[in-house]
């Protein structure tokens, strides 16, 4: 039962128990869903065939409706690249439809030379979409999430206002009509040929969009949807990827508009208003946003069903509203989702009938059974301080010079100067409010300092964006784990590796074998070899931390900044994490700067310690020196001596 259905019936436990008793034996396993996937493919192929062969099996009325469903479906499909793949919600997608449509219609009616060939103009609609998508994208991406959605609404209203108001150009509400593309596409003489042209074009566009969705670029978009911050720190210039997705969506939206004019021979402002944008979203929702062909299914459903509903009642928009409400609350995976569920039930029942033992998906099996790989991790007490005192070991690989940052009246970081030696494991400690996390944010590009410089390997990087720093070899982990939650461990690592190598700019194809093999190696290195197929969200806390380290390695960081790497871990997991950091740093010859509260960890693995207090550096030195330092004791360590004794 969906969560919302549960909530709605939460006031009626009797009803809920009743429903659960009925549905209980029908509960489909994850394996059944996977099996049903294959059936879905067959289903999709059948539907495409039916739509393609429609002129042979249906009357003129249905053919015209199907044509309209194809334009709406293509618009919705392009919208879904944003909504599902990238996680962006656009309220004004119809604006690109409008631009493509008017590009084909206006030159024909106004008899503009060259462009008055509708088919030629149609060939140019992708360009129109791409350019307008880029320009409008620059504006709408000034906002994030909700603001982005509202800006798209605004931009679309603007486009509509022009279409509606500039009567001389667009014809306003009367629009432009009589746009005949070619003799062989005349809707009165050759309606079937026209239909197949529309169908064929849409099919080509669908295939292209499918390839793009399944490419490394599509993977990168999904990563951005899952966890934007992690994407930044995997080396993806997120804004650029999002803008590219927007441009691609705009391109295909415009193609849909141009196709509509060729098919309908007319366009007017009433066809490109907010309702069209809303319909595209509704088609996506009703069909099922998680399924590639969902938007088409939704478009067909809407047009065929509401063609009938509009004739039956004046309350047709109420009916539509109720349908949307119902789907959003009770059936969030849409029509295709319901079909998938039904197929999975079928598979389960079939399996029960045949008494086939339930197959358990690979990832779960590994995580459940004691397949926990034993990785030799050095015990904390075995580890000795590695490189001797950093003095005289050469210039620091990371230098902070006079960094300052204030928030209003509060000075969080006050003229901090420190250097991290190559190959050192350098701890940054201090009480809450000492400015440690702010300092990290300044170094890793999440905030711009008010003053001072950050120099990495001799080059100034002050204020550089996170993805640029990743390309220079800097990796960062956060206090709260940051992973691509819905992706598996292996996918997390592979995506990070692909991103930093630029493979994710590929709009087609798959990752190469070397990248995948490397991911496997990295997982082994951190002890997660058996958990490659498990979704990141399902790993234990300690394993999630290890996965973060693996992704840091995947981006080939030579320099790691770890923000409280053992926060939230149990004492045992803490020891493991600390030992892992030491081991990896030794094996890969990394330089590590980390913030910690756990003094055992600090004194266990650090070569050098900097103590911060109220935004400034209080003291620096080897662990022994810091332990003896009375200022540090007073400011922070407190009863450390007692604690030391107990262990």
């Amino acid at each position: 039962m969906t969560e919302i259905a549960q909530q709605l019936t939460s006031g009626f436990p009797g009803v809920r128990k009743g429903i659960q008793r009925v549905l209980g034996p029908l509960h489909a396993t994850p394996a059944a869903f996977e099996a049903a996937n294959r059936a879905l493919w067959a289903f999709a192929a059948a539907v495409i065939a039916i739509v393609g062969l429609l002129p042979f099996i249906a009357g003129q009325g249905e053919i015209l409706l199907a044509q309209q469903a194809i334009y709406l479906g293509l618009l919705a499909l392009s919208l879904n690249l944003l909504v599902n793949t990238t996680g962006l919600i656009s309220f004004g997608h119809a604006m690109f439809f409008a631009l493509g449509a008017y590009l084909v219609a206006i030159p024909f009616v106004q008899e503009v030379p060259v462009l008055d060939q509708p088919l030629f103009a149609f060939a140019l609609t992708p360009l129109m979409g791409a350019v307008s998508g880029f320009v409008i994208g620059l504006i709408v991406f000034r906002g994030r999430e909700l603001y982005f959605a509202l800006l798209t609404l605004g931009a679309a209203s603007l486009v509509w206002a022009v279409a509606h108001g500039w009567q001389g150009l667009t014809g306003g509400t009367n629009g432009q009509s009589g746009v005949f593309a070619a003799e062989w596409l005349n809707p009165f003489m050759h309606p079937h040929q026209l239909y197949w042209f529309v169908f064929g074009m849409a099919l080509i566009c669908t295939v292209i969009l499918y390839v793009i969705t399944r490419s490394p670029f599509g993977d990168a978009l999904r990563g951005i949807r899952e966890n934007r911050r992690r994407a930044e720190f995997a080396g993806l210039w997120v804004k650029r990827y999002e803008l590219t997705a927007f441009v691609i969506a705009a391109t295909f939206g415009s193609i849909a508009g141009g196709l509509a004019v060729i098919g309908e021979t007319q366009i007017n402002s009433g066809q490109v208003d907010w309702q069209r944008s809303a319909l595209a979203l509704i088609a996506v929702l009703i069909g099922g946003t998680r399924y590639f062909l969902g938007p088409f299914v939704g478009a067909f459903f809407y047009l065929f069903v509401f063609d009938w509903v509009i004739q039956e009642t004046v309350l047709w928009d109420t009916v539509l509203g109720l349908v949307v409400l119902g789907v959003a609350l009770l059936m969030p995976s849409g029509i295709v989702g319901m079909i998938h569920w039904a197929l999975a039930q079928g598979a389960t029942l079939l399996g029960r009938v045949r008494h086939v033992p339930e197959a358990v998906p690979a990832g779960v099996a590994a995580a459940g059974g004691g397949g926990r790989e034993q990785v030799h991790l050095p015990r904390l007490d075995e580890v000795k301080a590695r490189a001797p005192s950093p003095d005289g070991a050469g210039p620091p690989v990371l230098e902070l010079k006079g960094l300052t940052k204030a928030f209003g009246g509060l000075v969080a970081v006050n003229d901090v100067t420190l250097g991290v030696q190559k190959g050192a494991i350098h701890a940054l400690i201090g009480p809450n409010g000492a400015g440690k996390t702010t300092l990290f944010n300044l170094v890793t590009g999440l905030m711009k300092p008010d003053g001072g410089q950050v120099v990495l390997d001799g080059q100034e990087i002050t204020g550089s964006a996170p993805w640029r720093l990743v390309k220079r070899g800097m990796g960062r982990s956060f206090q709260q784990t940051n992973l691509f939650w819905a992706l598996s461990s292996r996918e997390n690592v592979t995506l990070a590796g692909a991103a930093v190598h630029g493979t994710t700019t590929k709009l087609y194809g798959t990752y190469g074998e070397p990248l995948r093999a490397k991911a496997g190696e990295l997982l082994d290195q951190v002890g997660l070899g058996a958990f490659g197929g498990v979704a990141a969200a399902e790993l234990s806390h300690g394993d999630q931390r290890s996965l973060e380290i693996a992704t840091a390695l995947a981006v080939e960081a030579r320099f790691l900044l770890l923000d409280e790497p053992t926060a939230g871990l149990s004492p045992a997991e803490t020891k493991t994490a600390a030992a892992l950091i030491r081991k990896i740093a030794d094996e890969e010859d990394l330089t590590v700067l980390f913030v910690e509260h756990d003094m055992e960890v600090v004194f266990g693995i650090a070569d050098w310690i900097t103590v911060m207090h109220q935004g400034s550096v209080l003291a620096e030195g080897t662990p022994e020196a810091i332990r003896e330092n009375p200022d540090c004791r007073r400011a922070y360590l407190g009863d450390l001596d007692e604690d030391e004794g107990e262990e």
Partner: protein
Amino acid sequence: MSARDGRPAALDVGGLNAFYGKSQVVFDLDLRVEPGEAVAILGRNGAGKTSILMAIAGVVTSRAGAIRLAGEEISNVPSFKRVRKGLSLVPSGSRAFPNLTVAENLALVRSASDGGMRWTVEDAYETFPRLEELQDASAGTLSGGERQMLAVARAMLARPRLLMLDEPSEGLAPFVLKEIAARLAGLAEQGLGILLAEQNHRFALEVADRVYFIEKGAVAWEGAAGTAADPEVIGRYLAV
């Protein structure tokens, strides 16, 4: 130090099962806190400690045999009403309302309980003098330790019979922890029942009289704090 003078237990939980969505995180748990007693639940991260507290507070879905607060059954009572009856939770993370002043933070509390003790804003300022100095300051400008004190003061204003704290030591400097531990001990002496969930066993054992070790959402060991401090016991339940 526990009171055995015929008063009902501050908290008596029997057969608690808690769920996050579909997954069950607490399994058939029994738990008891006497008035004036401080009890700690310890366990690894992910063992279910926070879920237990959230389930008792009513914030997380649960089904229980019984949850009794000072003898009164509350398992079907909505969360905010449990607070008004005298069950206070200080959630993890030193949370406060940053856009309100300290005084406004304290003025928010709604309670109908008396928990056997008088506790007003004056008492809050007396117990935490720093808060009185900061009363017109916006809570967003307070340090972590000050926010935690504010959180405890807020919880106390509900005049609870049972005070629950989720990882109160997280992210706080040792000397702040000492102060908070002292305050909690003082409150327990006045008859308040205290239940705290912790990973930092040193802090917890300083404060608690009795300890439960939790493993995978069920009680694995129960006993006096003194016995719990044995490295072997700790090693078994907090190590791998």
